[in-house]
């Protein structure tokens, strides 16, 4: 009985020795897959990525299968592989290949962290080879390094001793965001003369001179407006007609041409010939005078009227407001004046 046990032990030792020798023999002939890399289409955790592998096959060993094993701990073939948490390549599809070709995914041996490519065993080509896998689910957590061990086999299912090996690495990164805030704003400037972008303004009063029943008296001022309100803005004109004590010059309640010798006070926002005053709107914006104030040579004034507007975000527009005053011969003498206020509103 003792001799039998000794014999069995001896056989076991021999078998173990042979196995180790065979393993060492198999590994010692392995060459390195050089110029190897993996490009992942996205490094975002849990994203579905396309992984593109490329490497040079260094030997013409019989090639029947290639194993891509994803590991979180080490690229070493001497260490057991720990599968990256959340990684799933079990549904990966091989979308393209070049170099050593003819492979398909060996579904039976492919796992959540290992893709096995298989083909009928044939001599390998010493050439650059590439394999693109779609539908790879990235690991679920950011990590500065995730490894993929690549090994080639003569067998068609990734079993036995590998021929050539190499590892590549990629990193999983959280999305990096850049934030900024654009505040709401409305820019309005009013003066006798304003720059189209409100960068300069000058003057705050107009002297229409001595009013006469023989001709129209006219003057002009300007305002410019812009907003980033998506609903745009409205500019209103507020104030009274021209007065001198209890004496007034009647305001035009409808767009009306100039008739010297009659009492008329009105404004518009266009270039006029009768009388020759004003300018058409300028600027890159989308604003326009409202209808009643948008007729050349016709004037009106109704306090609180909207005189210009834009219904969307708009760059600067500069509007020129023309003032028309006519008086009859019976107009009482005096100094006539008025103050107009321009108000722009938006609906942020």
């Amino acid at each position: 009985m003792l001799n039998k046990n000794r014999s069995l032990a001896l056989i076991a030792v021999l078998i173990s020795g042979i196995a180790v020798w065979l393993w060492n023999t198999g590994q010692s002939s392995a060459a390195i897959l050089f110029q190897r890399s993996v490009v992942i289409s996205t490094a975002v955790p849990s994203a579905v990525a396309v992984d593109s592998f490329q490497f040079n096959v260094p030997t013409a060993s019989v090639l029947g299968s290639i194993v891509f094993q994803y590991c979180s701990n080490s690229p070493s073939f001497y260490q057991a592989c720990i599968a990256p948490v959340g990684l799933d390549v079990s549904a990966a599809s091989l979308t393209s290949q070049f170099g050593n070709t003819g492979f398909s995914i060996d579904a039976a041996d492919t796992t959540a962290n290992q893709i096995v490519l298989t083909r009928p065993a044939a001599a390998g080509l010493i050439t650059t080879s590439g394999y693109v896998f779609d539908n790879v689910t990235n690991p679920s957590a950011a990590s500065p390094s995730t490894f993929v061990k690549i090994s080639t086999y003569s067998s068609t299912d990734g079993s036995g001793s590998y021929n050539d090996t190499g590892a590549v690495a990629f990193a999983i990164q959280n999305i990096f965001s850049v934030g900024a805030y654009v505040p709401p704003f409305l820019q309005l400037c009013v003066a006798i003369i304003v720059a189209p972008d409100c960068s300069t303004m000058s003057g705050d009063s107009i002297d229409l001179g001595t009013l006469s029943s023989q001709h129209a008296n006219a003057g002009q001022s300007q305002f410019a407006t812009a907003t980033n309100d998506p609903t745009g803005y409205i500019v209103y004109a507020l104030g009274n007609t021209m007065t001198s004590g209890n004496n007034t010059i009647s305001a035009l309640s409808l767009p009306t041409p100039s008739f010297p010798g009659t009492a008329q006070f009105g404004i518009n926002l266009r270039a006029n010939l009768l009388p020759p005053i004003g300018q058409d709107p300028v600027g890159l914006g989308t604003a326009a005078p409202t209808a009643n104030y948008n007729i050349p040579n016709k004037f009106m004034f109704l306090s609180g009227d909207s005189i210009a507007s834009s219904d969307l975000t708009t760059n600067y527009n500069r509007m020129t407001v023309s003032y028309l005053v006519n008086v009859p011969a019976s107009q009482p003498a005096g100094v006539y004046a008025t103050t107009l206020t321009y108000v722009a509103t938006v609906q942020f």
Partner: protein
Amino acid sequence: MPLLAALIWIGLWLMPLMVPQASALGQLTSRSLTLSSGVPSATGVSYSFTFTLASTSQVQGLKFLACTSAVSTYPSGSSCTAPAGMSGAGNGFLGATFSSQSGWQGATNFAVDSTGANDCIPSANVLCAKRTDTTSQTATARTITFGGIKNPSAANTPFYVGVYTYTTVNYTAGSRVDFGATASAVVQSLTTAASVAEVLNFCVGATTVDDTTTSVASDCTGVSGTSLNLGTLDSSQINISPWSTDGGDGNNGVAMVRSNAGNGVVVAYDAIQQSGSNHLGTLRISGATCNPTSNTFTDPCINAAGPTQTVFTPGTEMFGMTIAGINSGSTTSYSCTYGGPGNTCDLEPLANYLGGGTTGLETYGTGNGFAWDESGSVVNIASSASSTVKQVDDEALILKFAATPSITTPFGQYQAKTDMIAVPTY
């Protein structure tokens, strides 16, 4: 008479014992043989002999005899067997050449004598050298070295070389002065193997560091943050990170890389496509609808600078990124100094993402402008592939983002998202 004859015969017999023979030679002391290579059958090997003469007479001839045993090299020794590999054409001493000597009296150097004479006939295991110089020697140490020798072929086997000195250039037995044996061996080459695993440590975060020398973090474990804030945009200015006022958080972006890939590492980004329609990869209000055309300043998408680097103008809506420089504050394996003709960093910003200066004459900053590819395609922005040394030790890209709105850029919270990728090629 018979007695006389017998005495003469006995005398003739004893006469050789009275003539000084090998036992009369001086002993070379402190002798050694040093081989430049102990690899079996190695060629072009230098043999350097060191010894101290016993005699002060002139030395004009040297003989070196290689055998498998020390005794065989002795003047009165047994027949010499040449070490394996030191016989036949092209082997052993047959290709030897004089290399150098020191400690010898007399200005004339020895030379290999390929002809030999008398006691020294050159062969694969016999080396003869001579010079014409009658200067008396001192009993001091000296060396002589010969090159072009092919080693014996048997690994882990010692061999012995006897050294003889002669007062003549023709190696007559009577001119032999000193002798000594040296020993050496060729040995099996010992190969020590180890493998270095592939390394990649790549991380992205936010940092207040705004130069090339202040350490961002000791390594990737210290890099944190997933966002930066450019604050409140104003059409009168360009907000460039780090922006610390009007809501800005004072951070730059940073991407740190460590890789031992022998073919370099490439750092790339792609713009995450956000929800909404059109221009999904730029600085935009997430979920908003933007105009399909570019260069519109009224939609809630700030125009991307595009793939070509552009210098921004305040008020002309634009968003982009650049690499201000390579930070080496955490690099310990080598000296990394970014910028100018003395740039020694291994990572280099690529075209359209070099913040300042030109390749080889880099400057830290954003003077070259910004770029941003909103398409979502992967864009390479830095690489060590063109560096002489392609491995990278915790070099950090300082990423600067910039934006300026148009006067019509709709108000709201804008955001751009990026996906940073490192691709080492081993």
